[in-house]
């Protein structure tokens, strides 16, 4: 009989959401998503308590929250080490290098035809695999994590940026030519702005890649801090609530990172059709 309240709650939330979704306004859309998330959390908590699932298998959300609150100092050090130092530095360097390379490639059709297929190909390969090599080369500290992130984010951004620089139509380029615009001016005033939507597409894709690269690289050696290091050692000590605390940090950091990039995109490419409010 203990399954009864679980099923009742689930059906109740489902009915509420079905009813709410009929209105389809901005507020109800938000409410529906929030109710869905809250329902899952409550169901999770209920199931763990009712069936007395040991925390080693699945800690309840309340336990995770308690562990998160109790370990804020540790989590903060790990956050600084992995996300701020490793992922963010690597992402910035990688993005900058990719944009500059794309501009160089853009001037040479020969390089474009040669490098792009290879770039596309490399972007699909399991690049995380180079982590052990880069850890060997750059040492255990965050520099090697940043190096892994640089390589991981480089190709997706490069491919997007090259496509973006080629995205102007012949009419626009002809117009620049009739105005006798030098290369620099046509790059700065026409091609770079036109490439921005593509660039931001690449930047958004690579936000999670950056976190993944930095965390996975820590499995191959790390100083005694960092999110990857902490979660693998905490698993060893069966301190699962702490691991889930790290996951929570990763989730929050990942969402924030993505959100900030998306926000900047909105400011930079406000003119693009995809940014205008549309009804689906």
């Amino acid at each position, binding site marked *: 009989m203990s399954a009864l309240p679980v099923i009742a709650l689930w059906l109740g939330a489902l009915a509420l*959401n079905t009813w709410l979704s009929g209105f389809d306004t901005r507020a109800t859309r938000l409410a529906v998503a929030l109710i869905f998330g809250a329902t899952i959390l409550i169901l999770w908590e209920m199931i763990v308590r009712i069936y007395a699932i040991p925390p080693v298998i699945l800690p309840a959300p309340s336990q995770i929250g308690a562990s998160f609150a109790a370990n804020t100092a540790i989590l903060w050090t790990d956050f600084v080490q992995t996300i701020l130092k490793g992922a963010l530095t690597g992402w910035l360097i990688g993005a900058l290098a990719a944009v500059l390379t794309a501009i160089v490639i853009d001037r040479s059709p020969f390089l474009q035809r040669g490098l792009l297929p290879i770039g596309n190909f490399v972007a699909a390969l399991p690049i995380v*695999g180079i982590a052990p090599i880069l850890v060997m080369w750059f040492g255990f500290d965050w520099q090697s994590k940043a190096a892994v992130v640089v390589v991981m984010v480089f190709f997706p951004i490069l491919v997007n940026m090259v496509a973006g620089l080629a995205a102007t139509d012949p009419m626009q380029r002809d117009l620049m030519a009739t105005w006798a615009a030098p290369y620099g001016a046509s790059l700065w005033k026409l091609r770079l702005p036109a490439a921005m939507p593509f660039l931001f597409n690449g930047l958004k894709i690579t936000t999670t890649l950056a976190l993944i690269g930095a965390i*996975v690289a820590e499995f191959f050696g790390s100083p005694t801090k960092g999110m990857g290091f902490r979660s693998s050692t905490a698993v060893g000590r069966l301190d699962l609530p702490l*691991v889930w605390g790290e*996951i929570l940090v990763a989730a929050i950091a990942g969402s924030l990172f993505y959100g900030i990039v998306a926000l900047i995109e909105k400011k930079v490419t406000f003119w693009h059709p995809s940014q205008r409010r549309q009804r689906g």
Partner: protein
Amino acid sequence: MTEAAILFGPGALGRVLPILTVLLAIVAIWYLAAVWMNSTWVQDQAARADTVLTTGDLVRQTLTLERPVLPAPHQVAMGLWEGVAGQKITSKRSLVWHGWVTLSATLAGFAIGTAAGILLAVGIVHNRAMDQSVMPWAVASQTVPILAIAPMVIVVFASMGVTGLLPKAMIAAWLSFFPVLVGMVKGLRTPDAMQLDLMHSWNASRRQQFWRLRLPSSLPYLFASLKVAIAAALVGTIVGELPAGATSGLGARLLSGSYYGQTVQIWSALFAAAILAAILVMLIGVLERLVLHRMGLAR
């Protein structure tokens, strides 16, 4: 007409030549880098043995080290060949065996992820409540670096007595479901109002609308997503092998290579994984062409 042009048709040379040039440049840079990065060690050894190295000796020695900082391309190729053809397939040193362990988990995870992605997409397209509640969280789920969860997923499954293929497959599935979901939702929504109205005026049921219109028009999107998803599944499997102390699979090969400083082993495993990914993506591409051709959708 050159021979290449006769073999591959006109224009093939123009397409292949730039790629070959870039590849050649990469190999050349790789050799130079190998000499440069390994030279410190070789020179230290020579200084210790009180011998003077000529440039020729230096180059020869840097390219034949047992544990180089950067193995030369031919060393990696040798390592790959040794791992693929030089061992019995059942041997623990065989890359074919390790590759198979990784491949089986990848394919299982890919199948689970694709099925979940398609089912969710069908639900989202047909049910507004599901669209509004699931979609935002599916998007949010991708900002979580799942690979951070990999060690835990494996421990959790192990504590329930499930080891081997399934835990790795779950990670692969998690990574591959999202591209499929997004592509499929987009694909199922491609039919425009005109086409849907036409179906409506023919008095087609929702089921008929789905099978005859929505599903066929979503296939190009599906295949584009599948290519992304299978590469992601492979990455998920390899990373799933890293932290759990697995002894088989390409990920385990990478990890043990990094423990014992066997650089050639790391590079061979890396290239094996890359080749596997390339083959898988290519297979999906072939499947795509076949299916779209059969359905008259090929461009």
